[in-house]
């Protein structure tokens, strides 16, 4: 098992390396200079390029960039002089993390409960309705939902605040917009795997043993049914991070998503690179984590790897 974890870790590192490389070369191939060349004299341009290390040959720049990242330095912003990418991340990431974690936890709780309800309910009508609702939940894009919620609850009814993040109430709309898709996805997963588990022999055995319904449902079936949820939580977390790009733009929340969108619109290449690598690293780490947890939880995966 340790070998499996080490292998996955190595894969993660290689992937990150790959991401850094393509990001670097793609942004260096970009035509034109990152500086506003119209108003600068040639000597000024030379000095600027020397300062930012752009005058050296490409492979030297690459090695320097790699060693910088290794030391944790993601570079300076071009468009906002004096601001480092690390500072931007330090400012924005805690906020994005709060939103993302909140949405994730909410999605897990509600998704699992709804999924169990879908499997356990006796009425076909209920199940059909919940299934349709969950398909709708999966289909509606998160920015559409964010705008709709903003229009209904923020503008028309004026129940909830829409801009910024000053009070706890401000969190409700963004977190809900982010969480709807994961809720629908998780509830569908839980429904299908829970139903499968419900029909297994060990459930019959548990009933024969006389265990209470509560014990059977939650201790036994749920633990086995949760495996697909763990598998999918890595990609789901990645989805939440990318979803935060648009939700933060709509609700004007100063997180990394908004910084990323701003830097793209401003063509601030170092920030784009730095944030891409950061977000990519987070996603790769989340996938790695969910893979490892999967292996820890399900012995079958371990034993299969002969």
């Amino acid at each position, binding site marked *: 098992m340790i070998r499996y974890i080490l292998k996955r870790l190595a*894969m993660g590192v290689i992937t990150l390396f790959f991401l850094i490389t*393509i990001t670097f070369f*793609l942004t260096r191939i970009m035509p034109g200079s990152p500086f506003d060349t119209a108003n600068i004299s040639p000597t000024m341009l030379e000095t600027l390029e020397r300062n930012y290390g752009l005058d050296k040959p490409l492979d030297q720049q690459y090695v320097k960039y790699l060693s910088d990242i290794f030391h944790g330095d993601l570079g300076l912003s071009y468009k906002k002089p004096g601001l480092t990418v690390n500072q931007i991340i330090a400012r924005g990431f805690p906020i994005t993390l709060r939103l993302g974690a909140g949405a994730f936890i909410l999605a897990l709780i509600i998704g699992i409960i709804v999924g169990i309800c879908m499997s356990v309910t006796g009425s076909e009508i209920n199940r059909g309705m919940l299934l349709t609702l969950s398909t709708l939940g999966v289909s509606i*894009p998160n920015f*559409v939902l964010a705008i709709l919620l903003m229009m209904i609850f923020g503008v028309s009814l004026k129940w909830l605040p829409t801009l910024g993040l000053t009070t706890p109430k401000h969190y409700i709309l963004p977190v809900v917009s982010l969480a709807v898709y994961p809720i629908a996805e998780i509830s569908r997963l839980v429904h299908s795997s829970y139903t499968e588990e419900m029909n297994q022999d060990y459930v019959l055995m548990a009933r024969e043993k006389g265990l209470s319904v509560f014990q059977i449902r939650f201790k036994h079936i749920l633990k086995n049914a949760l495996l697909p949820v763990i598998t999918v939580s890595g990609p789901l977390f990645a989805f939440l991070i990318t979803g935060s790009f*648009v939700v933060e733009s709509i609700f004007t929340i100063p997180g990394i998503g908004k910084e990323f969108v701003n830097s793209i619109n401003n*063509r601030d290449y170092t920030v784009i690179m730095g944030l*891409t690598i950061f977000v990519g690293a987070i996603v790769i780490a989340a996938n790695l984590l969910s893979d490892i947890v999967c292996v820890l939880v399900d012995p079958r995966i371990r034993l299969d790897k002969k």
Partner: protein
Amino acid sequence: MLKKEDYFKPIDKRVQDSEFIALKPKSFAADVWERFRENKLSLFSLYLLLSIIIIAVSGPFLSPYPYDGMNSSMTNRMMSIQHWFGTDQLGRDLFTRSLYGLRISLLIGFISTFINVGLGMVYGGIAGYAGGKADMAMMRFVDIIYAVPSLLYIILLMLLFGSNVRSIMLGICISGWIGIARITRAQVITLKERDFSVAAYIQGASSFRILFRHLFVNALGPIIVEATLMVPQAIFMEAFLSFIGVGISAPEASLGTLAQDARMYLEIYPYQMIFPIAMLCLVIFSLNFISEGLGQALNPKDRR
């Protein structure tokens, strides 16, 4: 001792008539279609999607307004007989622009999925059929590409090649085919041990023929389900990117850009946002319901 003529005697006619096959022979496709039709929601979604496609393809021809025809005397009008969806802040007819946006969304969705399925099936089929070290090497290589979120690929490509349809399709296709490749590979690995493939092999069929003629056809089930899920994902990705400003650029109309343009006027002219968003949602909903129905139709055992 039985004589040769006694080995096989024709059956008595009465016995022959008592046994008959009640059902008429039906092809696999007809079977699937019949099961699909039972799910009323999916059937409705299919018809809805077909109508949307027809309108999107033919609509701009029939509309008297070009999608970029600015008319400053007719800005921000509500719905009327002349402008079914009203006009936007530059006087352009929103109905035509929405149809153009639909066109772009459907184009991106279907073509990128088509390319992904083609690439993925070939790659996964070869990997699965070859097996062993080649298979492992191919899949490891692909794992690395897959691990990076495709959004990042698309954004980098759009910065490099400009904000147009081709960049988005390229970005979606860079890692989109990998899911299909994995499914195809898994299917091929299971199917190549089956009797029919062994039979083809014994009869001297070339690997190429076995793979394409026999294995692919039988592997299509899960691949089709995955493909019908990829179309709405691609459409969502394009709308998402256009909405944050990284996607298609003006004056091209994409449903995402229409929504973005309408954001500023949301409180005063909500209709400008509602129509593109409603069309986007309709397309994605219907595709997802079709995919559900197809999944159930192709795997009757899985139905609940």
